[in-house]
């Protein structure tokens, strides 16, 4: 066990860092949600909606998301290869470099250095930094897997490998740009082509940051925490390969009804519908795994996090493909429906699964039990309620916006001006903030619980030594 101590500290470092960036990202999220209905909260030049929104998305995708993925992947890989990391010092350096990069990323985005590519906003010098970070990560992950002491690679490792490869390809290609000074660049691709490259990236960033890594966690921690084996190995094989194959075809469903050639849009829509199958492969696998003993929902406090998490994944992967259809897209695209959709995935599926993984890891590292299952349960219900209020409110607003944008009077002229429709959103935008506040309070319970668990672990260790 002592072989793992140094690496466990690195894992803990990533988890604590990701929680810290998560708090920053969530607080900014609350702030911009209030800016939507109270424009006086815009404080130029650094704290206007246009700049803060990218700090929110990048802070949570890269700070919370990638930070948690780094830490949890190191943990999973060590367990599944039955050995410590191949390069422990490199992993520690990786942690410091990661936090440095996130600080610089946040500051540069607040300063308005922005490539205007969604989820690839960072300017080129930071992009190089991100690539270096990723290579360091990949070297350690692959090195440790190659030198493993367990012959067979478990399902989670497939998703780990796919994540490492796909994110590298996506990130490098979409960030190719023509530098014009240290803080400004222009996309190597122009116009329609630029749009096609960006959404090939943008959609697959969701695929390989918010899907495959989270599935790696799900397939590892669900059996670990419940003691139930995965229902079907064969189903996981089929689901894995069809998922990583189909995902890359679907980016253009973000560009339905734009000037992008129709055939690319149609192909993307078709593959998007197909994607329901592999997504639900994992959903079914999750349900049937716990299905062998549903009493785990009561007896093991983490089971409900995983089951609700995979349920939101299932809902997300039906709602998403539906949105790709032209008839649905023309109503809800560009409306608040879309943030409603995104936040079901991030606040539901991703966060529930990641926090459950962290609830599992932290007591293991400290060789103790969770501080309070009761607080974990309160956390669960608050984030669930907060997220549902958020998403449902935004779906309603989105349909209303889409419908009013299209509304005409009996003589065929537009029934509402744009401004009249904006004004109708305010009650819903306020409701969204309320949902966000409830979610945030839930996350504070989580942070308290993790902090107290670590404290308890340290005290117990000190007690054992004395």
């Amino acid at each position, binding site marked *: 066990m002592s072989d793992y101590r140094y690496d466990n500290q690195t894992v803990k470092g990533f988890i604590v860092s990701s929680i810290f960036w998560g708090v920053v990202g969530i607080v900014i999220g609350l702030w911009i949600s209030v800016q*939507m209905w109270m*424009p006086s909260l*815009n404080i*130029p*030049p650094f704290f*206007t*909606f*246009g700049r803060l929104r990218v700090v929110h998305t990048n802070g949570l995708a890269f700070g919370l998301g990638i930070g948690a993925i780094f830490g949890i992947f190191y943990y999973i890989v060590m367990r599944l290869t039955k050995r410590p990391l191949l390069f422990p010092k490199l992993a520690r350096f990786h942690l410091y470099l990661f936090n440095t990069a996130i600080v610089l990323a946040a500051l540069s985005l607040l300063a*308005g250095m922005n*490539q*205007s*590519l*969604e989820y690839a906003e960072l300017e080129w010098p930071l992009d190089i930094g991100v690539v270096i970070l990723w290579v360091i990560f990949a070297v350690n992950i692959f090195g440790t*897997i*190659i030198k493993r002491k367990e012959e067979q*690679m478990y399902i989670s490792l497939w998703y780990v*490998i796919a994540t490492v490869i*796909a994110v590298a*390809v996506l990130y490098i290609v979409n960030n190719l740009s*023509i*530098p*014009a*000074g240290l803080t*400004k660049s*222009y*996309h190597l*691709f*122009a*116009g*329609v*082509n*630029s*749009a*096609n490259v*960006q959404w090939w990236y943008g959609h697959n960033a969701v695929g390989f940051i918010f899907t495959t890594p989270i599935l790696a966690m799900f397939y590892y921690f669900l059996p670990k925490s419940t003691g139930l084996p995965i229902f079907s190995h064969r189903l996981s094989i089929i689901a894995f*390969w069809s998922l*990583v194959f*189909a995902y890359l*075809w*679907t*980016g*253009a469903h973000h560009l339905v009804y734009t*000037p992008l050639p129709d055939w*690319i849009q149609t*192909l*993307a829509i078709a593959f998007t519908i197909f994607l329901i199958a592999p997504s639900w492969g994992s959903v079914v696998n999750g349900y049937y795994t716990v299905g062998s003993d549903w009493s785990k929902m009561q007896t093991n406090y983490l089971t409900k996090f995983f089951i609700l998490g995979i349920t939101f994944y299932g809902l997300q992967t039906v709602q998403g493909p539906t949105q790709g259809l032209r008839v649905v897209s*023309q109503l809800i*695209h*560009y409306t*608040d429906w*879309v943030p409603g959709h995104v936040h079901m995935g991030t606040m539901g599926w991703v966060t529930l699964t990641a926090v459950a993984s962290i609830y599992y890891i932290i007591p293991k590292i400290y060789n103790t039990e969770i501080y309070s299952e009761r607080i974990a349960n309160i956390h669960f219900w608050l984030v669930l309620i907060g997220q549902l209020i958020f998403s449902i409110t935004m779906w309603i607003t989105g349909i209303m916006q889409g419908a009013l*944008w299209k509304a005409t*009077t009996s*003589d065929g*002229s*537009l029934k509402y*001006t*744009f*401004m009249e429709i*904006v004004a109708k959103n305010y009650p819903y935008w306020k409701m969204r903030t309320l949902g966000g506040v409830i979610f945030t309070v839930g996350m504070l319970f989580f942070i308290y619980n993790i902090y107290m668990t670590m404290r308890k672990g340290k005290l117990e260790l000190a007690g054992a030594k004395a």
Partner: protein
Amino acid sequence: MAGDLYNKPILFAIVAAAVVLIGTAVTMFIPMLTAEMHPKLSNLKPYTALQLAGKDIYQREGCNNCHTQTVRPLKTEVMRYGEYSKAGEFAYDRPFLWGSKRTGPDLARIGGKYPDKWHEIHFDNPQSMFAESNMPAYGWLKNNTLDPASIERHMKANDFPYTSDDMAQLKDKTELDALIAYVQVIGTAVKKAPATAAQPAIKETHIPNPLAGDPVAIKQGAAMYKQHCVACHGDNGQGGIGPSLVDKMFLYVAGDMPDDDYFEIINNGTQPGMIEDGRTAKGGMPSYSNTLDKNKIWALVAYIRSLQAKK
């Protein structure tokens, strides 16, 4: 055999990479090599130095987080914003700025829709024009001057043509000037279709306002005036960004015009050089043909007449 794949991480990684690259090649990489992905309208011009500076500010301030720049080929969308977006309009945009959320309206056809002065006032205080707007104020941009050296670097990176005169002119401009210059050129490579057929230079017959003097219509017109007109023509029609409606001028020529000329101006809007019943427009006014139906426009004319009568 296939089971071996799960014991061989390097082979597994290679197979996974290949699987990921198939869809990438078909939908992204191969199309990039065809002319289909690089269209350019014949009258599309590279950005000038001032416009590019404005576009850089548009990106820096993250305007694309709330504004799209692509009109979908849907009936009501074309009515609201104008001609649907064409693939060839964006050849100089690195990257494209179509956006993904419309918290504010689409801007694909904003160029030339309003006069510069309108944008200046609107950027400075959006709520002064639209009380319920949630747009942040950007008046502070006028306190920032431009940096010609960095703009020159940006022009070079884009390979856009410029002269030393173009650069010299930047010195007296603010960031707000640049942003407005950019906004005014967005979507202008596509010609605007007139809302109705061109009118003969001087009309021989006129249609009277069917709602003239109708008190209900005047009341309705007052509400619409407040919503659509007050920002440019003032509370009592005294003018501001746009000309006065209560003096004895119409399109800069002395002497009033009949009701149906008012109707046509509101319906079609104006563009510099457009001729209405023998008089020439100088400024730009948006068209309200898709926002206000016939009766509403006549009601508005009735209200404007009531303002003139008060004077």
